[in-house]
């Protein structure tokens, strides 16, 4: 069955696919943390472009916007935690590079063998007029449980992130058995439990 994508679209998908993999490889090749972050962003934007070609407008826009912000935040953390933000000297910080490369290559080969040997069930199916509407109706209808679980997961993330970000917890203030009458704060006058 012939694809209903135009020749130009197929060409764009292939070019964007190559770009995304090239960006992914560049992340671990370039010497600067900032460059690595933006190489990852290029990879994400290329994937968003492919999603756009597949009529998944909403998911493509969400991917592009979310990843742009995420990489901007990541660049800040990279520069905070890494010693070589500007890439002024060569930088390789790897352990077990050979084993990792073999694992990555074997995974790729196994997946590719599967991809090119499976007889994919491509049939003439009804395409929805609006993929975003289809997703929205699924989220609020048949697939609401997925969104409920995602909501709980995100809420747990907020709580866990706050707990980890707090420098001093209740055990620092009230002792290991939480029995202290007054909290041991650097500046006295803190609230009791």
């Amino acid at each position, binding site marked *: *069955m012939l*694809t209903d*994508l135009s020749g130009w679209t197929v060409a764009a998908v292939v070019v964007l*696919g*190559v770009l*995304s*993999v090239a960006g*992914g490889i560049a*992340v*671990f090749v370039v010497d600067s943390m900032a460059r690595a*972050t933006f190489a*990852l962003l290029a*990879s994400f934007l290329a*994937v968003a472009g*492919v*999603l756009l070609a*597949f009529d*998944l407008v909403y*998911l493509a826009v*969400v*991917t592009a916007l*979310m990843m742009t912000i*995420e990489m901007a935040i*990541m660049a800040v*953390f*990279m520069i905070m*935690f*890494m010693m070589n933000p500007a890439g002024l000297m060569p930088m390789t910080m790897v*352990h*077990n590079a050979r*084993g*990792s*490369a073999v*694992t*990555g290559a074997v995974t*790729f080969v196994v*997946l*590719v063998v599967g*991809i090119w040997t499976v007889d*994919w069930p*491509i049939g003439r199916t*009804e*395409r*929805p007029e609006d*993929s975003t509407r*289809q*997703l929205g*109706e*699924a*989220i609020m209808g048949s*697939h609401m449980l*997925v969104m409920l679980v*995602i909501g709980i997961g*995100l809420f747990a*993330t907020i709580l*866990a*992130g706050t707990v*980890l*970000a707090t*420098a001093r917890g209740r055990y620092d203030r009230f002792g290991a058995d939480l029995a202290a009458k007054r909290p041991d704060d650097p500046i006295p006058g803190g609230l009791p439990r």
Partner: protein
Amino acid sequence: MTAELVLQIVLTVAAGLIGVGLFGALSQQSIVMVMMGLELVLNGVLLAGGAAWYFLAPELPDAQMLVVVALVVMAVEMAMGFAVTVAIYRARQVDMVDMATDLRG
């Protein structure tokens, strides 16, 4: 060009992203770079999910939901990853995975 061929090409690209990401997650010493490797793996999942929806089952929203879940996993991974990185750095100035070997068997 047949639809199956385009699907196979896109899935091969996704497999490439997953392979590169796995290499990065396993080989990098910096905690932040490990997270970048994991993000690349999830990037491959996004691409494969989108292709699966378009070519295999556009009448069902399931593949789109998979992409949404992968996006959420990315956000959670990054939030918790940075929280753990900041917490362990604050506690004992660890910013490399090789320095955090307390649980090594």
